[in-house]
């Protein structure tokens, strides 16, 4: 399994993560920042546990992030 951690408040809404992993990321039209689909929030940090098969796509999403707020850990 893979844990995705996302520091949403720092998101600048560039859409880079959506381009890499569209099933996991969607930009909110409410505030222009990205949502981690299936993510749970704790003190502004969002986390989602996803299957290993999503690792590569989300690794690309993290690499695409210009403000480096997406982190991946294999658990």
């Amino acid at each position, binding site marked *: 399994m893979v844990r995705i951690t996302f520091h949403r408040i720092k998101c*600048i809404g560039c859409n880079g993560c959506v381009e890499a992993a569209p099933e996991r990321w969607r930009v909110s*039209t*409410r*505030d*222009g920042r990205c949502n981690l689909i299936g993510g749970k929030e704790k003190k502004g940090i969002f986390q989602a546990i996803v299957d290993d098969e999503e690792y590569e796509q989300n690794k690309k999403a993290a690499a*695409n*992030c*210009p*403000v480096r707020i997406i982190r991946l850990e294999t658990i």
Partner: protein
Amino acid sequence: MNYADVEIMAPAGSFEALTAAINAGCHSVYFGVEQLNMRARSSINFTTDDLVRICRQCDAHHVKTYLTLNTILYDHDIRLMKTIIDCAKESGVTAVIAADHAAMAYCKEVGMPVHLSTQANVSNVETVQFYAGYADVIVLARELSLSQVANIIAEISRKEIKGPSGELIKIEVFAHGALCMAISGKCYLSLHSHNASANRGACIQNCRKEYVVTSKEDGIELEIDNEYIMSAKDLCTIGFLDKVLDAGVSVLKIEGRGRSADYVDTVVSCYRQALDALQDGTYGPDKIAQWTTELSKVYNRGFWDGYYLGRIMGEWSDAYGSKATEKKIHVGQCVKYYPKIKVGEFQMASHTLRKGDQILITGPASGVTRSQVEELRVEDRTVELVEKGDIFTLPLSEAIRPKDKIYKVVQA
């Protein structure tokens, strides 16, 4: 030439910088909220909840407020853009600085005044005429010469080009601060190397770094060690401010929303003094030398006159980062201020402080206070030096507040 209506516009990337700008004598401030501005990465940025407080503080000092909303906008940003503009209008912000047509169109729809950002790259009077339907103030491209600027302003008068307010279009130019290597900030380098778009406020400043040239033929590397070939020196117009204003410029913008409060304090003070000196006829070489020395003390990459005086090629910095002649060391914070006896109480967090040291105190409501340590007291005894952990007092004529930060100013 009457300089009374000229406006000095200061950057405010924090409440410290905002207060410093107001205290230093600016006529207006500009700031970003949320992520749709050109300092989305480097500045802390305010939230829409801060707008009322900013406007209240500025209104009390008759300082105009401009909100930057000048990134490229995507479809998913439109709702946020509208929310920000609605909040700005409700809070009493003077105008929005925009570059994207969607933001301009919405401002027009809701009756929010617009200033056209330098990102729009306005370089001729026909373009001024095009945007006159939306904006009352237009920031020209930083790459124009002063004669081109003067010509555009003369044509605005001759053709009577008016903005939505019914007044002639006013022209704003950058007077001081960092310059982008790309024309009007339209740079792709940061996006290319780090997927971090400068045009979404996420520039990672590739141009400020050192580079090595590699021969494709044999792999030999040559280090470019005499210049940072893409890193422009900082713009400084204080030595020819008379020429800038004689071109008919109405607003002088100071760059630096990512800069500290003491930077804003120094730069705004110098330019305000220069403007006042022009008004009272005392502007001249001696004062220019003094101001240049002061400006050199805070963050700078070396100064040049930009493209205003007709230069074709840029001038590049020869060092990484700042060439400031002074630096500040954080030594502690204010515990309490006693206004009747004009004494500040502080706790040392690191380093030492001696009698005679130059100090700088900054805080969100205090702005910037500069002073020299005249006396140090610990538990009612006069001492020569205080160290980490000491709680001490020193006389301060200007009021400060608890949690304000105290710095020691030293030669860089």
